[in-house]
């Protein structure tokens, strides 16, 4: 079996193709929709915003592109990039291929926070305002709890953290289910929609709210690639190589969780991106996190925008839940890449 690690040429090719996919995703995200607007018109209008040429869109088309599709596209790019890089980072720091960004309780905490805001048992909560805030707060409190239980102390390690995450998630999910059960059928449906994730409520405001978190957290995750490569030999050995394991683990978990919490607060729980994208990238470019993480950022962004384009067009005018689409296209893509890779190394 030829199982030599991927050559620099293959890595360069995959990187280039990923960038092309991102460009295609951006074009799809802007051009595809119920109102047909030509790509050349959109490009012309983008150039006119940069001071080149004159505007090519009517006021209505301009509103559709710049107030509806563009913020949705940008939020999709941010969400895809963040979830994918956070998933890859978690898989590296926990040395566990099943790790995803929701491992330490982000999903359960955000779910409880959002349910609290949507169900609004006592009344008086402005649901649209409070849903992202409580989802974000719930996610961060959940991760802080998990860290407090399993990440501190002399004997803490990746396994104790994962187990603490399982316990915290189970507890918060049970609370969320209880809250949901106490609410009306209408609320249950809204909670359910939120749990499946959607970019439908994207606005420039939500983009700017998550933007700083995503940029900073993605940057931290990407530069942690070298540390994660060292950690691939285990905690004891990486310590003997000079890696401050506990500090690195704290920083990368904090960055991944914070970024994921920000995204989840804006778009709900979009599943599958965080686990499938880093795996596909790993199959294509090998096991080094110095390659996996930056390519996952670009690939994750493209992947989620493609998935969202499908979600909003396949059954238009109604939308499919984004989480359903990410799984429905992610799983077959993963199987194809896996079988291609097997054929290549045979």
């Amino acid at each position, binding site marked *: 079996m030829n199982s030599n690690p991927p050559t620099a040429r293959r890595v360069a090719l995959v990187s280039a193709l990923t960038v092309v996919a991102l460009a295609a995703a951006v074009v799809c995200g802007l051009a595809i929709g119920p109102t047909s607007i030509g790509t050349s018109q959109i490009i012309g209008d983008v150039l006119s915003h940069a001071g080149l040429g004159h505007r090519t869109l009517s006021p209505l088309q301009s509103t559709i592109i710049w107030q509806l599709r563009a913020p949705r596209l940008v939020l999709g790019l941010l969400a895809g990039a963040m979830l994918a890089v956070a998933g890859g980072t978690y898989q590296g720091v926990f040395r566990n291929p099943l790790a995803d960004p929701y491992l330490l309780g982000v999903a359960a905490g955000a779910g409880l926070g959002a349910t609290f805001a949507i169900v609004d048992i006592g009344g008086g909560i402005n649901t649209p305002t409070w849903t992202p805030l409580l989802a974000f707060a719930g996610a961060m409190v959940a991760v802080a709890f998990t860290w407090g239980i399993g990440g501190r102390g002399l004997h803490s390690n990746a396994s104790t953290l994962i187990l603490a995450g399982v316990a915290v998630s189970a507890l918060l999910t049970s609370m969320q289910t209880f809250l949901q059960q106490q609410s009306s059928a209408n609320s249950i449906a809204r909670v359910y929609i939120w749990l499946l994730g959607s970019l439908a409520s994207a606005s420039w405001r939500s983009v700017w709210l998550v933007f700083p978190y995503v940029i900073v957290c993605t940057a931290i995750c990407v530069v942690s690639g070298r540390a994660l490569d060292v950690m691939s030999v285990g905690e004891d*050995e990486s310590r003997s190589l000079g890696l401050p394991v506990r500090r690195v683990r704290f920083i990368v978990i904090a960055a991944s969780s914070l970024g994921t919490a920000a995204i989840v607060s804006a778009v709900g729980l979009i599943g599958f991106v965080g686990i499938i994208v880093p795996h596909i990238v790993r199959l294509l470019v090998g096991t080094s996190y110095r390659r996996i993480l930056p390519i996952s950022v670009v690939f994750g962004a493209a992947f989620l925008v493609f998935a969202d384009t499908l979600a909003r067009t396949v059954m238009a005018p109604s939308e499919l839940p984004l989480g359903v689409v990410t799984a429905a296209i992610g799983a077959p893509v993963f199987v194809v890449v896996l079988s291609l890779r097997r054929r290549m190394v045979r």
Partner: protein
Amino acid sequence: MSTVEIQDLTVRAGSKVLVSGVSLDIEPGTWCTVVGPNGAGKTTLVETVAGIRRASSGSVSISGQCLSTMSERSRARMVALVPQHPEVPAGMTVKDYVSLGRTAYHGLLRAPSARDRAVVDSVLERLSLQEFAERDVITLSGGERQRMVLGRALAQSTMVIVLDEPITGLDLRHQIELLDLLKSEVAQCGLTVVATLHDLTLAGQFADRLVLLDRGEVILDGPAREVIRSAELAHCYGMGLRVVDVDGSDVVVPVRSGLRH
């Protein structure tokens, strides 16, 4: 001054005492091997010397600097470890694996410098690993793999190298090859070696000094030939041992009780 100074070292796991009141001074350039039966505390002792296990009381110093006060990075420039069961991450090249030994020099945010790359190339050459440099680590045989792990430790350019059962699972030829390689590194670079070995013959042949450990305590400490021929050694293992001189080298032969007449 000693390179490695262990003072009244005690290591506990919960209420169980693994190493108890061990004090040793190991001179620069010395090869010191810790021997003793299973459960004697050998691995615990050497892992504490390598700084990956904390002392419950007492201290370990290298060149006068106490390990517990050092950062991971400074410590990794002074002492390297070849663990008993090294993790071999699939998909990594041999060269990248050996390069991990330079982490403490270039840090986590910078790429390896020209000097780091030169050290790695030199190690690959000395250990005859160049032909495997771009191979996936999991494709190596046991002997090649163990040489690669030694290479990673040597790339750390430390004064002290700690090896925990480095020849486990290797056939006779590869056992001798690996220990010979290490011996030549000790001679060339003035390395101080702290090792554990189960094979008493090889322990006696390669070490300058043997430390006999039993139930966490030092039973005997002295020149290899003396410890090998001591009555305490057989006593600790709880069986008969015969030392035979073969061409000037001591060979330790276990005596099966059932074969005694």
